[in-house]
């Protein structure tokens, strides 16, 4: 269905090549590798650009300046990809790839591609597109002192706090519209695994468990989306302690779609933390319990543990719930890495 220009495809390919070269940088520790990538990007910028991309680490307004909305509606600050030269843009994407896992980076690229598709199908609407994503730093990239990298735009807000060896991805928002498209002859669902794995888990539950997991009411949107920092809601649904080992493993597979966006060693630490609380983690579902093969679910679901909130919320806008989704990933005890920083 989609039409993305060959220029963009080439740009994508160039980005991937850069990622490959960056990942071959050797056996550097993750933080050292990320800081090197950040400094390489900063070295490509002029003074004015450096001023625009850098914020004080204690700039809480910038820290919270993220949204699901397009940047023309909810302005972001930092540097816009579309304003960067090819070399600067490559360095920015290389930095992003060093912070994220390969799958995480691919997901982010697919979300941006979806926005490019939306731009094309919306008669070149200037509100959308791959150029309209912003990068910014809070603090100075360092191997020891905390700092933060933000990258986001429409349907995307990646907030990574780096504090020494720690890499914290929460809060992060992912979304997609269209949530299913074709690029270079390949069908893409940026958040397809989030949909398929959750449905598989639901289908693996027995009747008693399903009664607990399926909420008897409609949930029409994210509860803890943008602007809802610092809130912890009462969990609901089916507790993982009431699941079988296989079901718990499936639950972890769903969770990994968010916890695994960040680079592998940070993702492993995060997953260990989530596993430790797994028995006290809840799975709740609201809406249809089936989906058309190859398409996303049209139901809302939430996974919530002591240190985890994941929400998957299909959106009515555009007419097809399976084609527009917002998701949220939080750690109520450690959003913005506050465990490791004074923020």
């Amino acid at each position, binding site marked *: 269905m989609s039409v993305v220009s060959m220029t963009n495809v080439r740009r994508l390919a160039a980005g991937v090549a850069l990622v490959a070269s960056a990942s071959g940088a050797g056996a550097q520790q993750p933080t050292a590798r990320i800081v090197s990538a950040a400094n390489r990007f900063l070295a490509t910028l002029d003074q004015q650009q450096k001023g625009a991309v850098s914020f004080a680490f204690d700039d809480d307004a910038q820290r919270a300046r993220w949204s699901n*909305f397009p940047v023309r*509606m909810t302005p972001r600050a930092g540097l816009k990809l579309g304003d960067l030269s090819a070399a600067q843009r490559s360095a920015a994407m290389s930095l992003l790839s060093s912070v994220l896992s390969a799958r995480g980076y691919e997901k982010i690229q697919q979300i941006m591609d979806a926005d490019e598709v939306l731009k094309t199908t919306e008669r070149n609407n200037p509100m959308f597109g791959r150029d309209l994503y912003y990068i910014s730093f809070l603090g100075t990239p360092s191997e020891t002192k905390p700092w933060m990298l933000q990258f986001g735009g429409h349907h995307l807000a990646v907030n990574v706090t780096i504090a020494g060896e720690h890499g914290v991805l929460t809060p992060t928002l992912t979304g997609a519209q269209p949530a299913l498209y074709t690029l270079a002859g390949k069908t893409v669902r940026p958040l397809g695994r989030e949909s398929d794995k959750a449905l598989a888990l639901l289908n693996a539950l027995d009747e008693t468990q399903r009664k607990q997991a399926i909420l008897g009411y409609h949930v029409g949107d994210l*509860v803890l989306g943008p602007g809802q920092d610092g809130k912890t809601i*009462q969990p609901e649904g089916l507790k993982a302690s009431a699941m079988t080992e296989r079901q718990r493993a499936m639950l972890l597979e769903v969770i990994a779609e968010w916890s695994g966006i960040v680079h592998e060693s940070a993702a492993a630490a995060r997953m260990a933390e989530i596993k430790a609380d797994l028995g006290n983690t809840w799975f709740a579902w609201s809406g249809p319990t089936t989906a058309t093969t190859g398409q996303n679910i049209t139901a809302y679901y939430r996974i919530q543990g002591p240190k985890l909130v994941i929400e998957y919320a299909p959106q009515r*806008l555009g007419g097809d719930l399976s084609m527009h989704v917002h998701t949220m990933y939080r750690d109520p005890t450690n959003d913005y890495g506050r465990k490791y920083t004074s923020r």
Partner: protein
Amino acid sequence: MRAIAVGTAALLLSVASPAFAHRTDEYLQATTIAVEKDRLAVQMRLAPGIEVFPRVLALIDADGDGAVTEGELRAYAQRLTNDLSLSVDGVRLPLRLVSSKMEALEALEDGRGTIQLAFDAAAPRGSGGRRLVFENHHQRPMAEYLVNGLVPRDPAIRLGAQRRNYDQSVYRLDYTQSGAVASTPSDQSWSRMWWWLAVAALIPLTRLTMKVRMGQRRGRLAVVPPREN
């Protein structure tokens, strides 16, 4: 009073094509309820979709001048409480408006703005098992309701089961408040009745005690030997 001007919203609407970015024909009303020892805090985040925004604006902009004053916003929030109901253990609690904030009209007009209202209510004294019921029927035909209890900071309060009807216009939260013998929410009316009976029984008892004491005092006075001059 500060007026929030309409400004160039119409022009922005024509430039943007917001139908693909956010809600259109719903009035999202997301409520969180924080249970504290003596107080309940109710926060509402209201987000009208672009198609229903003119109807929502008409509810707020009482004089129809296209701008919303702080007074008009407060008055709207007060009127909105007529569509809300909050009770604990069957006792309906009046909601007090604590704050009201509204983003610029152009933000609301293109579906990305919100209205933030904060209310609170004094929680009736009590302990053990308790039941909170919140109802929101504001603009139901276009409403998309969300309501959730926030995990309390006070360890003496523990939230239990939450129940909602399908559209979340009716919400029930069971919670326990430590400090006394536990009782189920359905026992609360009985607890209250026994309390009042005890008070009623204490009144004549207190009177009787006072009479006896007065009598004793008189008696003591009576037996005081006359002072010798």
